[in-house]
């Protein structure tokens, strides 16, 4: 199969899994709202009946933030604590949700919420291990490849001005080129895990490595294309949101709708990536005959 075939397969699997996408959207919205709604209430409480919010019409206003005084410290402190908890919960929740979505992508049955939740539960621990280890590897990679050389350069003497900056750019490029490899390993591991639920997460990671390097250049460029689409969409996402300054209640509501539609589309792109990888893994497995018969028609 060609790359295009896998992309098409991934897309059709993705569309079939629309229920899972909606579940992911709702749960993520709920989780973030736990933090966002009290934050909004806190800010409104500080502002009271003041008209100083007119200074926000052009964006964040330092004069107003200055006048939050001690309240700003309280809000920021709560926000920081809340963010930490939300991020950890989100990370864990996404292990469950990605297990569910991978199950939907690979199932022969009609994709349903029950398949989603069953798959999420079955694969939760393995997916958590796979995602955690992959994330740790990426972070360590960034530190080793990017941070350590720069620290050594800076400490070793007085490098020519700009040398550290230029070296940093090269190292950053290197890191950017390497990260898709580890994302690919994680996706391969997860796709394989779903069809081998009895196996441990570490075993799946090993399979992820072997699937990645069995046809490396094909897989690598496959993943680069998928990630490039996601990155471009992300840039569009940020541009649209950061440039929006609604001036009416209707505008605020429209902003909410648009932002959520964009996020759903983001999940859809990610699911498409998962589906495409699943298609690629299945074709490899059929060729290698080292896996149980896939439970989805390619």
């Amino acid at each position, binding site marked *: 199969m060609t790359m295009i075939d896998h992309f098409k397969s991934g897309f059709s699997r993705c569309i079939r899994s629309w229920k899972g996408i909606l579940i992911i959207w709702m749960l993520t919205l709920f989780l973030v709202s736990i933090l966002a*709604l009290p934050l909004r209430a806190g800010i409104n409480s500080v502002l009271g009946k*003041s008209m100083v919010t007119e200074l926000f019409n052009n964006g964040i206003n*330092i004069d107003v933030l200055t006048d939050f005084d001690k309240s700003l410290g309280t809000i920021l402190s709560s926000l920081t604590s809340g963010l930490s908890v939300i991020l950890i919960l989100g990370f864990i929740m996404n292990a469950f949700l990605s297990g569910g979505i991978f199950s939907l992508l690979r199932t022969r049955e009609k994709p349903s919420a029950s398949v989603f939740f069953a798959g999420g539960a079955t694969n939760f621990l393995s997916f958590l291990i796979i*995602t955690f280890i992959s994330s740790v590897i990426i972070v360590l990679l960034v530190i080793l490849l990017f941070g350590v050389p720069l620290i050594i350069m800076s400490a070793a003497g007085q490098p020519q001005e700009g040398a550290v*900056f230029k070296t940093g750019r090269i190292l950053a490029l290197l890191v950017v080129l390497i990260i898709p490899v580890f994302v690919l390993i994680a996706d391969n591991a997860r796709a394989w895990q779903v069809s081998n639920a009895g196996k441990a997460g570490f075993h799946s990671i090993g399979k992820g490595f072997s699937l990645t390097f069995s046809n490396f250049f094909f897989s690598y460029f496959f993943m680069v294309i998928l990630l490039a689409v996601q990155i471009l969409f992300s840039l569009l*996402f940020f541009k649209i949101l950061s440039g929006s300054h609604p001036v009416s209640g209707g505008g*605020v509501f429209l902003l909410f709708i648009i932002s959520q539609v*964009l996020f759903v589309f983001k999940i859809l792109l990610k699911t498409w990536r998962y589906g495409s990888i699943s298609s690629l893994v299945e074709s490899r497995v059929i060729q290698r005959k080292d896996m149980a018969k896939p439970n989805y028609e390619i």
Partner: protein
Amino acid sequence: MGRLIFSILLLLTFTGGSYSQTVNRKVLSARLTGYKIDATLDPVAKTVAGKMEAYWVNNSADPVPDLQMHMYLNAFRSNKSTFYKENSVFDKTEKIDFGYIEINSFTDIYGKDLKPGMSYISPDDGNPEDMTVLLIALPEPVRPGDTIFIIIDFKSKLPALTHRTGFNDDFFFVGQWFPKFGVYESAGMRFATKGGWNCHQFHYNSEFYANHSVYDVKITVPKEYVVGSGGLLLNEEDPGGEGKNKTLTYRAEDILDFAWTAWPGYAVYSDNWKHVDITFLAPPERKGQVDRQFIAVKSALEYLDEKVGPYPWTHLTFVDPPAKGQGAGGMEYTTIFTSQSAYKIPESIHIPELVTVHEFGHAYFMGILASNEFEEPWLDEGVNTFWEQRIMDHYYGENSGFLDHPLLKISDKSYSRLSYVSSEGRQLVSNSEYSWNYPHGTYGMMSYFKTANVLYTLMGIIGEETTDEIFREYYKRWAFRHPSGYDFIDVVNEVVTRVHGNKFGPDLNWFFDQTLFGTGLVDYKVVRFLNTRVSSFKGLKMETDSLLPESGEYKKDSLYKSTVQLERPGDVMLPVDVLIHFDNNDSIPETWDGKARHKDFIYTGTRKVDWVKIDPEYKIRMDVNFINNSYTNSPDRIPVSSFTNKFIAFMQFFISFISL
């Protein structure tokens, strides 16, 4: 008689150069001091060997029995100096590369040895280890009107560059490097009740005070070094052949200080503005910032020239030190100053421009209007910061003078207000303190930011035109002299009275006493407003501020008594504008003198108040709380809701991102 003739001839020879107007179009100052220095840099030993001929003119009515000179570099002589003792951050046990000035010989022009009369004094704190003020007891007093000439052979050892002057590797910034006369203040000058030297020790939180002088300086450096200075380059002598050094001859007139820099890595760029030749020295890697820097300095030249007074010199040099020279960054020496930048700093971050504009501004507020930076740092730093903010917000955006990024814009004056309002030490001390007496790290906030906000508040009360008129008059009256803070306030009082009559009282001392020299806060608050339905018009007592229609019957249910309640939680009493808006779109501008703790405005009519604003244009920048300056029953929640929606979306995105 012979000695008299000899003195006159020497004076003419020495100062003949002074009055030859080699550099400036005319003599700008009294030139009570002059320096002729031959300096040789030894980049290996990190020393500058100097031979200096200098003079001081006693223009007072006192016979002066001694001289006092600043030996600023001795502040870096040991960690027992006043400078280091006052630096709580500095580890007293740390070994650093110290700096000092050593006097090898000190004579008068007849060769009489003056060294026996030398002693170090500590007029500020009595620290016997501090050697930054040198007293020279003279064999004969300098009579009123006389001039004393001295010849000093000295060696300056430059310190490791941590505080403006010194070296780092092959980079040198040489400031405060030679023995420098203090200022003799005769009775009646500034705060002096009797004649005496005003010559303070070098403190961690202090700058400088000197007379406008003439400088003839020859600097000898290795050939590969590029030199920049506050003088005009008259000659460059390169003996050629195997000679390793070159000698540059500079002359500067009517400036307070002579500083210079040398580094082999400088690239030199030139531009000009009207009569001013501008030289910019920077690392070649920062070539991309050259245009930004020239635009910044020319904007400052244009603005100050128009609103304050002409820039009188024909030359200006500014330096963007390399990364290893950042300890020298952000400092002024009149016709040379240092900016501060970094490689590839984005154009949205206006720090290079801000530092350039600020340090150039000191050419006016310090260089021309030569206040005593030791005793009244606000008059230099604060006034200059006020002008820096006006320039930045004028040329780089009213809301983006400091930062101009699509996601966040910050004006320079907002950044300044943030620094003042958020400081916990804002009420610890007033601006009447000497610079080294500001406690707990409050020097910067008080001298720079509080003063700038005081001046913005003043401008908010009296208007921008009157403010500009004040500074034009201040420049006209005090250029190339030593004004005190009260001299500045006298100009304010005079101009405000001339323009506004008695609108603000006989003078504005009440303003400065509370804001600059007081420790109180400014805070005004709209408590609330009430619209009470009035059941019957008959027998209604007319209240002040009412706006009853002229005549007519009223329906029983259409008449309201509206009461607007204002408070002054802050201690400072300032007149403020109040804008009261009604539901039929009428607005009434009021003024409250701010003296009482509370004030009510009462209106009776068919209209109801729907919002109230104190200081609707946010001109009282010292107000520590803009949030309570307004009140409405229908607050606009849209910005916060919009922010929340974006926050939700970004958080959803980020959670999805981190889980691969």
